């Protein structure tokens, strides 16, 4: 029986705590008597018969939906959309769940005589997936059967000939999505729900949308009113997507949603990385030796080599649930299953919140975690992994540990470079950034060209990264990054510190002496239910 998540009060016997630090780690001692560490639950047992579970979900849909086989008819137009490279994190071992689900859907389509099938990576304004990445997601068999015919491809949010405008919500939000998907008799959406933010109407209304549509919820106001965006019912981001879902339904777009949840078996139970999944006081001699050896090696290794090693890691996740059918009914169950694995009950807020940021976030798979992504991961994703209220009190301090290199992937993140150089050098205020700069970047022909023909994130994407942290920026009194490139950290508007002890001292200017400290041990992913 896996053990649930845990809140550990730090006392004299507590060993140093492992902090993720990009492509490396730090061992940190937290002040005794006023610090606590939140540990994730152990991985829930994965489903053994994955294919059987998928078959069952397709045949026993939730909500007002017929089984998939009853929705498939000869001559129909079928579009299978699937989550892109940003999910899951790290990528999973082969076979990817998307492959297994898509193969099951295609089997049924073939049995039903459906031969007009397109597969679309629902990447919104993310970078196009490479052939290798698509093969990893859907498998070689599916790729070879569809890609050469032009029936498996990346969504293009800037292709005016292949977008369909479907109307507006009652709040004036425009809905424009992939034309092929909109004009299909059925969209089957294949999701991997890593965190509670994913899935639901966000899959179609965001994943297949254009900038014209996305700008209505990917903006500062929405993010500042999403408390948090990991809690759908308190998230304006999700309210907007749900409103758009209604417009899609009213416009006759039929979606058969397939959502999957994973356990948090990120680093496995063998090999050097398995130590990262253990609680420090339970490390045995072998774990200690393994960790010290790994750390010594990483300390000496060039960042590029370390990055290559980490980026090649494929997680051995187990499938914990798969459900299919009507979007909202499916997503309710999915969210409950995500929470079952990730939610840890925490009493009360803290003065100082600390995160050790790992090497990966949704937007640097096979790439570089640039400073903007450090901000997004820390203040966007990790900060928002709460229900109820933020782990840190209003006016409190967030301390992140990450090398924060002044380094960008030139192919993946060209507009990030310009955003960092030209926008953040002027202001870090999300509202000012949105008002003064977003339009120019979003409509920049060069970024559009790179998004459509290369493997670049859309010109507006770095803005969304910054907006993702807008709620945290509004809430926090100070942000400090330990061990980061000082120039890059300052450009972000944060304060650099060499050590955690220095950071804690600097934080006392904001939160006073003897503050309470909470460290969240993530990954494996956890979400705090703060009472």
């Amino acid at each position, binding site marked *: 029986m896996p053990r649930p998540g845990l809140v550990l009060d730090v006392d004299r016997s507590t060993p140093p705590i492992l902090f993720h630090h990009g492509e490396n780690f730090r061992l940190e001692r937290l002040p005794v008597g006023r610090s606590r560490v939140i540990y994730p639950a152990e991985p829930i047992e994965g489903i053994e018969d994955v294919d059987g579970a998928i078959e069952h979900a397709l045949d026993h849909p939730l909500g007002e939906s017929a089984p998939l086989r009853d929705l498939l008819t000869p001559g129909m137009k079928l579009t299978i959309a699937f989550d892109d490279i940003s999910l899951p994190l790290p990528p999973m071992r082969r076979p990817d769940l998307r492959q297994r689900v898509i193969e099951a859907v295609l089997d049924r389509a073939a049995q039903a005589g459906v031969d007009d099938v397109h597969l679309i990576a629902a990447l919104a304004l993310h970078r196009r997936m490479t052939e290798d990445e698509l093969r990893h997601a859907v498998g070689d068999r599916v790729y070879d059967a569809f890609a050469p015919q032009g029936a498996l491809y990346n969504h293009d949010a800037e292709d005016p000939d292949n977008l369909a405008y479907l109307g507006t919500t009652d709040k004036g939000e425009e809905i424009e999505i992939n034309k092929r998907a909109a004009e299909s008799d059925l969209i089957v959406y294949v999701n991997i729900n890593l965190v509670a933010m994913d899935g639901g109407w966000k899959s179609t209304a965001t994943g297949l949308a254009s900038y014209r549509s996305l700008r209505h919820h990917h903006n500062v106001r929405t993010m500042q009113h999403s408390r948090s965006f990991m809690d759908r019912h308190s998230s304006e981001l999700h309210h907007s997507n749900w409103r758009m879902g209604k417009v899609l339904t009213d416009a006759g777009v039929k979606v058969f949603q397939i959502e999957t949840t994973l356990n948090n078996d990120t680093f496995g139970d063998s090999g050097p990385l398995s130590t990262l999944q253990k609680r420090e006081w339970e490390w045995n001699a072998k774990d200690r030796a393994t960790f010290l050896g790994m750390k010594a090696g990483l300390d000496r290794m060039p960042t590029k080599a370390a990055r290559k090693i980490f980026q090649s890691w494929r997680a051995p996740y187990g499938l914990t649930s798969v459900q299919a059918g009507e979007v909202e009914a499916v997503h309710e169950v999915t969210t409950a299953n995500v929470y079952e694995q990730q939610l840890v009950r925490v009493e009360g807020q803290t003065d100082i919140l600390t995160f050790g940021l790992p090497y990966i976030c949704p937007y640097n798979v096979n790439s570089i975690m640039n400073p903007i992504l450090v901000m997004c991961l820390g203040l966007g994703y990790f900060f928002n992994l709460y229900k109820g209220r933020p782990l840190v009190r209003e006016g409190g301090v967030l301390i992140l540990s990450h090398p924060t290199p002044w380094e960008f992937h030139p192919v993946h993140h060209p507009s990030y470079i310009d955003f960092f150089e030209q926008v953040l050098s002027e202001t870090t205020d999300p509202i000012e950034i949105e008002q003064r700069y977003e339009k120019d970047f979003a409509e*920049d022909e060069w970024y559009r060209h790179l998004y459509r023909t290369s493997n670049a994130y859309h010109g507006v994407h770095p803005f969304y990264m910054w907006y993702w942290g807008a709620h945290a920026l509004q809430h926090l009194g100070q942000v400090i990054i330990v061990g980061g490139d000082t120039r890059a950290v300052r450009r972000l508007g944060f304060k650099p510190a060499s050590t955690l002890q220095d950071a804690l001292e600097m934080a006392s200017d904001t939160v006073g002496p003897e503050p309470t400290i909470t460290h969240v041990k993530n990954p494996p992913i956890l979400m705090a239910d703060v009472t």
Partner: protein
Amino acid sequence: MKAVQFSRKPAKYAAGLVAGSIRPGSGAKYGPLSLRDIDPPDLPGDGWHRFRPRLAGICGSDLATIDGKSSRYFEPIVAFPFVPGHEVVGDLDDRSRAVLIPVLSCATRAIDPPCAGCAAGAINRCERIAFGHLEPGLQSGFCEDTGGGWSTGMVAHDSQLLTIGDDVSDEAAVMIEPTACAAHAAAQVDEDLVVVIGAGTLGLLTIAALDDATEVIATARYPEQRRLATELGAGRVVEPGELDRTVRSRTGSLRFGSQLTGGAPMVIDCVGSEESLSQALRVVAPGGEILVVGMPATTTLDLTGLWHREVAIRGCYAYDRSDFDRAVQLVTDLDLGRLVTATYSLADYTDAIAHAATAGPRGAVKIAFDLRTEKEREHL
């Protein structure tokens, strides 16, 4: 009198070149420059006056000469040994103060009728700089007969003297000559968007001289340069490595390879190096113009883009008399005397030149010699 003198000594010149390549400015220590007691220059004729420098600036062209990086182009138009220093404010015998206009035009050489350039008032285009009754020399400070500002005494012609009032400090006055260069460059600009490459003295002064209505994107390598460039009117100041991306964004350009498809209609290169000129070629718009204000030397450039995109490169040397009027106004209005960061005595000339050669990283702009306290000055 005391003077820092540059001699024609090939071995020393080679040593200065090597030293200057290793550490900028160290050509002063190992090259053909030395502090000497020499006779004051004779008055070359009518209209010439004794001129006792008060402050004399160190210019980029001086540094290039000292570190052996100047082009051999100059050999026929300088006369050795010479005393450098062409940014000079000094005293005349009647105790009035004047700023030197160092160009040695037809008027200074008693050439009558003057050449076409001088006749038109464009003394910077004088065709007789190696002729007449003076030794060759494009400016005072490069001519044996006139002496130069890095000394306690030199000579200056009527046409070279711009009298200044008591309201102009020596520090402000010594900035007038380089500001006149900048004013001359700014007068060539008729575009809404200009890129200025380099934020040394010349770059900063050019930014200051440009019309307020002109949008300026400037490069600056060091924090103090960035601060000053912004203060003097640049709308956007970026590090050199960021320029291509900034111009691309600003002009909505695309790229092929490292070349922008569009770009800025005018680029003012205040550095004049191979690197800066190459960058200028990358960011200038098709049909645009590169104005070379910083003194270049022998340079290797790929001019394919220049040909393909019909780009013009035009030199921009010195000034005419009217540029000095504008310069005085700029120096006064913008308090440009504050750009004089440090002054040195002649005895400390190697330190002074080392400081000037590393001004950017040391947060400095203009380094000058202060001759006001040189004892022998009063006896000349």
